[in-house]
């Protein structure tokens, strides 16, 4: 079993849903990132999505765009991001890490080099926003061959035939983008999400997690009733923005947000 499978099976045994947290690597500084990863896990996060900074994060809303800009001011690259994962992995052997970002830094590194380095660094999978399965075949099969999970996204506009393809090609989990919009949007329609997720779940045994628009215990609790887990990103990155120059405050504030979301999700079950 890979780390995703282990984590989901543990969750299932304990009757819990997956809480996935997102931060941008190097936002606001690389030392803070690794500490923050551990802190979020200790407050109840199950999976970490580690954002790879990119100059043109076209799918992100304003909050996460600024996170990318802060990380780039500290000159954080894909190589640096992998180093942070490796540092985290020295102490935490179990929490799965998915890199989330855009394809260009990976193309620049080269697919084969990337796959080897990701494996070495204790990365478990990738969520590449601008790499639909049609464009992801070569990288995807190179990853699967080495036991890494290419995670694809489903969206409210994905038609059934495509959804089947995406479910088939995804490993680890499938990321359902809950709304038409960028990260951090707030027009979440729970009824629609429930219907769509139920339909996708009938197509696959791979866990389906929901992201975009989930920002607190209440929204995460609602989502965890209809899906295998919830992804929280902008709400965390916002706290980093508000406390940019005070790493200790970031750890404390993000930690308590994660703890409250954990509680909201668990009590909703």
């Amino acid at each position, binding site marked *: 079993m890979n780390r995703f499978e282990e984590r989901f099976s543990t969750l299932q045994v304990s009757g819990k849903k997956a809480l996935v947290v997102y931060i941008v690597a190097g936002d606001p500084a690389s030392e803070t990132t690794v500490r923050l990863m551990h802190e979020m896990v200790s407050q109840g996060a199950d999976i970490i999505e580690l954002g790879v900074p990119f*100059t043109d994060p*076209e799918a992100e809303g304003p909050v996460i765009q600024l996170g990318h800009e802060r990380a*780039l001011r500290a000159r954080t690259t894909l190589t640096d991001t992998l180093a942070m994962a490796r540092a985290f992995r020295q102490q935490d052997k179990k929490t799965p890490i998915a890199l989330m970002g855009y394809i260009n830094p*990976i193309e*620049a*590194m080269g697919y084969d080099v990337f796959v080897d380095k990701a494996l070495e660094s204790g990365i478990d999978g990738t969520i590449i926003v*601008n790499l*639909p399965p*049609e464009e992801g075949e070569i990288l995807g099969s190179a990853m699967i061959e080495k036991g890494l999970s290419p995670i694809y996204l489903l*969206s409210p506009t994905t038609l059934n035939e495509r959804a089947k393809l995406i479910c088939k090609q995804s490993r680890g989990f499938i990321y359902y983008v809950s709304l038409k919009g960028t990260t951090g949007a707030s027009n979440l329609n729970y009824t629609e999400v429930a219907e769509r997720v139920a339909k996708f779940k009938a197509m696959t045994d791979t866990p389906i997690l929901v992201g975009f628009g989930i920002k607190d215990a209440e929204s995460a609790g609602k989502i965890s009733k209809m899906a295998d887990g919830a992804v929280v990103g902008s709400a965390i990155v916002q706290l980093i923005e508000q406390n940019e120059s005070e790493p200790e405050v970031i750890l404390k504030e993000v930690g308590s947000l994660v703890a409250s979301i954990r509680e909201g999700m668990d009590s909703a079950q």
Partner: protein
Amino acid sequence: MKNEQYKIPPGSNELSSAMPDERGYFGQYGGKFVSETLMAAISELETEYRRLKNNPEFIAQIERDLKDYVGRESPLYYAERLTKHVGGAKILLKREDLVHTGAHKINNCIGQALLAKHMGKPRVIAETGAGQHGVASATVAARFGLECCVYMGTEDIARQSLNVYRMKLLGATVVPVDSGTKTLKDALSEAMRDWVANVDSTYYIIGTVAGPHPYPMLVRDFQAVIGNETKRQCQAQYGQLPDALVACVGGGSNAMGIFYPFIDDTSVRLIGVEPAGHGMETGKHAAPLSVGSVGVLQGNRTYLMQDEDGLILDTHSVSAGLDYPGVGPEHSWLKDIKRAEYVTIDDEEALGAFRQLNLLEGILPALESAHAVAYAMKLAAQMKPDEILVINLSGRGDKDIPTMAGIDGISLS
């Protein structure tokens, strides 16, 4: 991936028009690198475009508007004094500066606005650098009764204030984009974010031959009117094809428009001029085809200005419309198969050509087009008098008067 398989046998008419392939690739360039939410929208657009592009009624609508509204065909003008001054090949200007709104951008906008109408989208969005595509989009939105929202970097808003006000007069909303480098690429990202959020109601009019498939194909097809007319006019006026075509390349739509119908005419040299900005040696330029490397940005794989970590570099050109770190994927392919040549002209040379075209021909070129003029003057000097060189004069320079006045230290207010 190998490019050899895409080499064009001389005289073949089919291969060039068959590009891109079904997956939206020109050789290894192009593709559909977009978020999942947009996949349905670009598939719908492709289906609709393929359905309509051979529909006689749709074609007639476009031709009618290009003639009566845009004012086509645009003249192919013999620049006699410029030719004499340079002392080489006969220099002809394809006068896209004379079409409605003052640049070739309108050709594409008419086609895409009609597509939007056919697809039942009440709202259009666009990105703009120099403001020419923004103006053209706002114009067709007014013409067809569509709501229009234009994204523009704050740096470009500052250097193209006339066009900003003009878009407002046309009823468009201009949204300032203050992220990243605050120029064209950031405006394009912001337009994509709008499109993701409003994909049901909104049609995205991309202004250049970039973005995800099918945009590079359909923008090229709508701009090919430039090359088709040039071919016909040159044959009629001089009984021969031109020997060289010269066009500036930012994203590459005016160049692709004039090149495309000549791709199979291998006696015709196709030359794209990228902006060298402050000079290639300074790194402050926007010439991905000349010194960039292959990567993926804003929907397609192409040559980019990027560092070794795959981060996109800041670019510079005195002309906002050329200030872009990527380039249309078909240009990348034409470069690799050596069908087109790509060269550079720096800010100073472009400004010099801008002034000379005013003095020698009484024509005010856009700073973008002035790059093509500058290179054409160098090239024509090395060609024979019985050869013909056509410059795609893609736009007029009224919008650049404040910039030029600033350079000359003259206050216009």
